[in-house]
């Protein structure tokens, strides 16, 4: 049996996983035989991989971990498995293994034979082979999982441990497999885990001359106190309903923390004024920005902070971001903009209404459209606005016709227009659809679809002075 202090050490390292650690300790110990197959499962961020890895390395049982994320094909997985086993063995016995017989692992059969041979050469001792995330293996052969499940029976002393998100029982075609469940952390466990490492309130500690009484110990105590309450507030207001797993919760909390404690750093509130701080910073908990994962972390927090200091209700970061995005938008060439608008209109307007909307000589356009909308109003209650539906495909000539009717004055029939369509396609703003999508670009039967939304096209239209909503069937009430 594993020494108790090792178990307790792992327990402090991974809080709230006592049951799982105890089960692992019971199943995999140096002296007692281990099960030929174990399936560990649990949702993401429940500590499956790290707990198992730490346990195995601490308990000094020879093992190898193969991560399926890093394996591009099924064959790749087999090759990596073999290499990892050989590496583990070499490391353990501290002598070179003759690798020549194991040069190729083309199939699962070869792997079985090679592993068998390797285990035979090994002087006793057990070996645990861990397949991490085996259920998301790319290009896995259908026999992979059932075969791996039977490795433990075929090869003595070998234990297979499969880690997956969901229980694998049916995919293995094998009854009676022991499963080890890693349940999602409860609120209490999450708080316990995150409380182990509270972030600092003051990024730079207050100067010792001004506040001689404020020792680092006191600061750490304050940090822990405020962080604990803050975590509870974040959970109840945001994370409970958006991201319950450890990583999302942690990310959300860390994203909010700096902004949350700003009044404390400024000196407006004391470190323990939690309730006043909550009231003052309540807008943080009303927005969704902190919940969303973004590549660009909130830009320039100091700038928003100064704005926030002055305003009563600070400008929401979302609005600020949107404004920044608008400014940074690159201008498209003039005709390209019109092409995109035309594409949007041909995607969202039914082709039979084109005559009403785009014929040059029908100067009663406005009346007719108005008429059309009144006719619609009878069954309006059921109609979804067109711009909320998926775009429908259109032929290229229709796009060009709408394009020309949108513009005043003639447009020369130059090849540049086609070039622009090709450019837009490679920018994925226009997409080819239908049966011809993979085929000939010049095929006239080719149909196209737009790949951007109403907001984008409205902005485009305003940049060239076209109100797109006026041309859209049914109108837009935004």
């Amino acid at each position: 049996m594993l020494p108790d202090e090792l178990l307790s050490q792992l327990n402090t390292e991974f809080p709230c996983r006592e049951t799982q650690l105890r089960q692992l300790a019971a199943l995999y110990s140096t002296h007692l035989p281990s099960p030929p197959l174990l399936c560990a499962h649990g949702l993401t961020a429940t500590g499956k991989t790290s707990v198992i890895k730490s346990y195995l390395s601490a308990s000094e049982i020879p093992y190898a971990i193969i991560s399926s994320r890093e394996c591009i094909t099924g064959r790749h997985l087999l090759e990596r498995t073999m290499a990892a086993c050989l590496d583990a063995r070499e490391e353990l016995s501290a002598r070179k293994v003759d690798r020549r017989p194991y040069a190729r692992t083309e199939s699962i059969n070869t792997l079985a034979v090679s592993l068998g041979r390797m285990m035979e050469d090994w002087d006793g001792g057990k070996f645990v082979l861990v397949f991490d995330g085996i259920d998301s293996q790319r290009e896995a052969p259908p026999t992979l999982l059932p075969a791996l499940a039977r490795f433990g029976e075929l090869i003595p002393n070998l234990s297979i441990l499969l880690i997956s998100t969901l229980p694998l029982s049916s995919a293995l075609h094998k009854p009676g497999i022991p499963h080890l469940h890693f349940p999602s952390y409860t609120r209490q466990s999450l708080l316990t885990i995150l409380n182990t490492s509270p972030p600092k309130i003051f990024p730079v500690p207050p100067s010792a001359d001004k506040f001689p009484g404020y020792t680092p110990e006191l600061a750490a105590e304050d940090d822990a106190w405020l962080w604990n309450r803050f975590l509870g507030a974040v959970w109840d207001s945001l994370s409970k309903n958006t991201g319950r797993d450890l990583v999302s919760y942690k990310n959300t909390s860390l994203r909010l923390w700096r902004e949350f404690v700003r009044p404390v750093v400024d000196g407006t509130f004391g470190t323990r004024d939690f309730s006043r701080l909550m009231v003052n910073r309540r807008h943080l908990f009303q927005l969704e920005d902190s919940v969303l994962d973004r590549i660009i972390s909130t830009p320039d927090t100091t700038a928003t902070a100064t704005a926030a200091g002055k305003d009563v209700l600070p400008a929401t970061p979302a609005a600020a971001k949107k404004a920044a995005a608008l400014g940074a938008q690159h201008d498209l060439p003039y005709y390209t903009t019109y092409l995109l608008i035309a594409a949007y209109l041909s995607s969202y307007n039914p082709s039979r209404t084109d005559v009403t909307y785009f014929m040059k000589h029908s100067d009663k356009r406005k009346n007719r459209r108005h008429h059309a909308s009144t006719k619609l109003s009878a069954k309006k209650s059921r109609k979804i606005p067109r711009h909320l539906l998926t775009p429908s495909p259109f032929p290229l000539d229709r796009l060009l016709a709408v394009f020309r009717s949108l513009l005043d004055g003639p447009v020369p029939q130059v090849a540049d227009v086609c070039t622009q369509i090709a450019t837009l396609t490679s920018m994925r703003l226009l997409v080819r659809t239908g049966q011809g999508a993979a085929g000939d670009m010049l095929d006239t039967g080719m149909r196209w679809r737009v790949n951007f939304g109403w907001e984008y096209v409205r902005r485009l239209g305003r940049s060239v002075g076209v109100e797109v909503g006026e041309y859209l069937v049914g109108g837009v009430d935004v």
Partner: protein
Amino acid sequence: MSETEHQKCYIYAPPLPEERASKRQRTSKSNPQKHLPERLQTYRKIWSHQEEKIQATLEEADRVTQEKIVNFVSVASQPEPEHRQVSAIPTGLVIAGPSIASHGPFFERLGRRIRDDTNSAYFVLTSGESPNLKTLLKNLIKKATSRVDDDDDDDLGRPSTSSKNGPKLLDFDLGHLQEWQSRNRVQSIVVTIQDSEAFDASILIEIVDLFYSWLDRLPFVLLFGIATSSESFEDRLSGKSLRYLEGQKFDVTQSSEIIEKLFSATVASTDIPLRIGPNLSRRILERQRDHVQNVQDFSNGLKYAYMSHFYANHTSIFLDENVSFEHLSSDMFEAVRILPSFRRWVEGMLEEGQTQEVRQLLQSDQFLFENIIHLVKSGHETLSALSIASTVFTNVRESLQMSPDVPLSSIWTRAASGEMIGSPLLRETMLLIKKIPSDKLVQLLTSMEDLDTASFTIDINAYRHELADLVKRNVNSTPLRSQHDVRNDSLRTTVVAQKVLLSKHKAALSEQDKAYSELVARFHDELDDYFTSTFINPRGLILSEILIYDLKSPHTEVFQPRPRFAIERALASPHDYLGCECCGADLGENGEVSLSGTQPSTAILYQMYLESGALINVSDLWSAFRAIAGDEEEESESKTMALFQRSLAELRYLGLVKPSKKKTDHIAKTMWKGL
């Protein structure tokens, strides 16, 4: 051909025609390509200067952005002790704008800088070479290790020598990269996804996932080239991948700004021997604004114009600085004598009665040569003065903060077409200068001091000193005002017999203001004189054909071809191309060519096709076709039918019609004329 029957290949020698083709009619022995090598050499010399300028401008244009990216990379690759437990891949989102063609050169320049300035490896991946994850990884590894691709063992990709020393890594295993990293010890591995939009979203997600899982062994930094916006890029990735990425956004300079800079460096600069005319430059700029925003295209257009001038214009040889009389043949001088501007010049001289000189110009090559050299030189100077004046003018407008904001390119184009004198733009600017208060004049003079003053005649320094004296003596805190300033006017209302009379009165000017007004008036007059003397019409220059290239013809055809228009026109009015008597003879009332049996059968069918709706009844089409193309006799009907079928097949081949299932015996029209 008996011996060729068993040969695998042979050189086909067509039988030589007995007599020469009738079309060739040139009989003289003269060499049409005389002095071509010299012209090409001149061209190369001049163009290489321009190209250097273009390169320098481009480097300068995105220097700031590149510096930021380089900084980001070097910071990201710094091993921070507390961040050793890496949480995310450092990611730069490079918003490179919608001109896809300039992404490649941009990332190439960026790569050079990253390799030079930081201890990083830099690899560019494009969508074309990465159809799936496996190929992408293979390519990446190949680029890193510069390993030769051995194409055995198809997609399993294992080198054949493997079985000697145990398992080898597969081709797409990032273990190769790890091995390479352990040898080279670079600080970061920068992987650039050049055209992120064109990648499958699934591939991007997989790369991010894979790179993240290797991040503890390989220091990856990702750069994504984005044409649209970072939001739309983020929308394409899954939430999980976004969590693995963390970074910044970098905006590349808008290509319209770069084009503006390029224009002032190449077309509107001072020391260039050959200039692009206003029409051509307007065309190039318009194309940039309306169709493509692309730096490469701009420089290609410029290059093509230079090439056209030097390849096709014999007189361009005089642009060579070292041209000497001995090497030129008399043909060159004949060519110069034909030039319209030369004729105008000579006629002008005749009117003035300088017959002696005209005779010499027409008879003596030596005299003409000297004159040409002189004229070309003075033409250069005039044109440079024009460019400088445009720059000065733009500068004045900028420092006066006048609206609308007119860029240098459009001012230069107007100036070069001789529209500047008397234009509202110039008048408005000069009026504003009359009213300028002293604080703005100081700014204006300061900004003008930075200009290239070689041919700028106004002595800015003198004005500055004078103004500084005046300002020093000014006791009030308000700036000095000239007499034309509206604040020196006052309106006086008088009511006479129930009519309101408004009268303007000049306020009494102080002593300083009077002196200042005098200074401003002098400055205004001098500037006005300067603009009047420099904004001449360049087309009136003697020998402007040599100095300016402004031909529309080959440029439009090369850069803006109209394939669809050409096909449609050929089919709709074949007479335009055939030029035969039979088809052109019967012109309709409104100038349109009507149908006739003598036209090509496909053209006849196409014109009928144009008149029909979206669905065409083939039987109707056939009877209409027979009425025009066929004759009454029964036996020729099969021939007409054959023509009809062939024409219909041709229309289908062109993609104009396709079979339809909507109605029996009908075909669907798929293309409309004029789109």
